[in-house]
């Protein structure tokens, strides 16, 4: 338990540092936020000064950082220049689409990588192993934005099997309950709408999950090979326990420990990939919102999103660390 607390306490300086960097990214940017906000409206110098002090921009940098931090903790990230609404409100509207996409991507990655990695390890140096190895090499080398476009050209344009963009067809729209369309459509018993949402999410989720699939395949394969070399597996074999039972009851359970914790760490690639994949597939999530915001210089939104992504990533790393310790009794908490 001491280690758990220690790791928890270590989070504090990291989160503070992350916030400081995100704050400085915006504070040290050339260009005046007030001028961006005003845009082409006419304002007197007094009104400008008032706006500046309202935003706290006339305070010294350390004080502004403390304000930023205090507000951020309360979920207040200021006003979106572009939407003229609180940043937190705009972000929380877009968040479910991004979370849903990421979860489905992760599910696809796990469901592909674990069987593939296990099969590759069991059938080491066979054609299956080759396919898994070469496949994962391609997986880490493929630029996601290009892979997405290829999938679109093949499945949406050429074969016309799947939609080109968006989350759901116009005719399938359902009132939002959880914000996750796959759940909302089922809750309301609209099975055809569920299928429609599934069709929309398939290509973006595959694209987003590809690097993770590649990495997890490798990790699972290596871990499985490692476990299969252990004495207890040889002992179980000597006892006459069937190979199948050894592999799935004993070996796999241990081999999955690294897979699960790497999966948690690799959510970083999902978070970054979101911006790319949502842009390619016109997915109305946070990633696309951020990219759009960059081009209209809507800095408070970009700042809040970067902070949100980073904090999520730090927490996922923490979870990975804890999971590893919990799953692996040999590492003491």
């Amino acid at each position: 338990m001491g280690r758990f607390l220690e790791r928890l306490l270590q989070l504090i300086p990291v989160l503070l540092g992350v916030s400081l960097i995100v704050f400085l990214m915006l504070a040290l940017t050339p260009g005046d936020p007030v001028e961006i906000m005003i845009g082409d409206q006419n304002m007197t110098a007094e009104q400008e000064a008032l706006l500046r002090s309202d935003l706290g921009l006339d305070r010294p940098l350390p004080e502004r950082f403390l304000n930023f931090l205090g507000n951020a903790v309360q979920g207040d990230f200021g006003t979106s220049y572009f939407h003229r609404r609180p940043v937190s409100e705009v972000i929380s509207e877009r968040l479910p689409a991004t979370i849903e996409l990421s979860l489905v991507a992760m599910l696809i990655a796990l469901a592909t990588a674990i069987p593939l990695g296990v099969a590759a390890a069991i059938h080491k140096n066979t054609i299956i192993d080759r396919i898994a190895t070469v496949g994962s090499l391609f997986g880490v080398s493929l630029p996601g934005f290009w892979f997405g476009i290829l999938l679109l050209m093949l499945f949406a344009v050429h074969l016309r099997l799947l939609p080109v963009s968006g989350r759901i067809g116009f005719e399938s729209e359902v009132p939002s309950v959880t914000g996750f369309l796959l759940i909302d459509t089922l809750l309301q018993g609209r099975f055809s709408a569920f299928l429609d949402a599934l069709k929309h999410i398939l290509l973006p989720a595959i694209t987003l999950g590809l690097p993770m699939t590649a990495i997890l395949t490798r990790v699972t394969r290596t871990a499985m090979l490692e476990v299969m070399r252990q004495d207890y597996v040889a002992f179980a074999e000597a006892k006459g326990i069937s190979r199948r039972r050894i592999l799935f009851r004993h070996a796999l359970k241990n081999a999955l420990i690294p897979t699960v914790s790497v999966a948690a760490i690799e959510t970083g690639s999902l978070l970054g990939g979101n911006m790319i994949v949502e842009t390619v597939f016109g997915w109305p999530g946070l990633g696309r919102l951020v990219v759009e915001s960059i081009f209209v210089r809507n800095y408070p939104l970009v700042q809040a999103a970067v902070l949100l992504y980073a904090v999520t990533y730090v927490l996922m790393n923490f979870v990975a660390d804890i999971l590893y310790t919990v799953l692996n009794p040999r590492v003491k908490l």
Partner: protein
Amino acid sequence: MSAVSDPATASPAASLFRRNLATFAENRLAVASAAILLGFVVMAVFAPWIAPQDPNETDLFRRLQPPAWMPGGEWAYLLGCDALGRDIFSRIIYGARISIFIGTVVVAVATVIGILAGLAAGYLRGWVDTLISRLIDILLGFPYLIFAIGLMAMMGPGLVNIILALVYKEWVIPARVVRGETLAVRELEYVEAARALGASRFHIMIREIMPNVLSAVLVVATIRMADVIILEASLSFLGLGVQPPTASWGSMVADGRAFILEAWWVSTFPGLAILTLVLVINVASQGLRDAFDPRFHE
């Protein structure tokens, strides 16, 4: 002071290098990849002599002209033309310059910074280590692409800014490797001996420890090159990279997005170039690692 650097170790080290090189040479896939990689470098360096057309010359009569082997194509425009009628093949050749230049510069600068920071943290310990290690922890708290996008959003696009945005985060990776290696090496007897002989801390770090951690960090550098190239392409794809009309593979793929219905070649070929380059770097660097990193020797 020079008494501590031992010329006698030079020849075994050289023969180890030769043996490792021989191991690498036996890995035919890795050697082939290295050869293709060299081809890309030659292409980038001699782009003006190799490219059949001017990469930025627009010609609206050739708008979305298909590749040579398709009806309407011509051999002078091998891979067809983009929406402005520019030759895709020539733009790919010029685009190699951006990818390889940024990949090399970012990794080189980050490696130098990483070596110095890692040596200082691992050898000097104390507050220097605390400061550098904290900074590393904090930077590791950002997903890479998000960090780069955030910085590019604030700094604005452009070649120098991409390099800066990537270096700010990239140096962490070699720094961690060097710090770890330094912690292990600093306790070895020969370092102890150098200290006893009164060598300065700077001398010990640079002349005694650095040569021992160099092979590990150079292997990491080659592996990192592939990631950095994908990151640059991703930034360019989003429009945050090198600005038009300069050809960059990432922005070329983005250009083609609007035409996937009628002109698949605009996005496909530049993407294929990225994939090939990244793939050969990955294969070659894995071969290097297997041959040169003692931990992978069975």
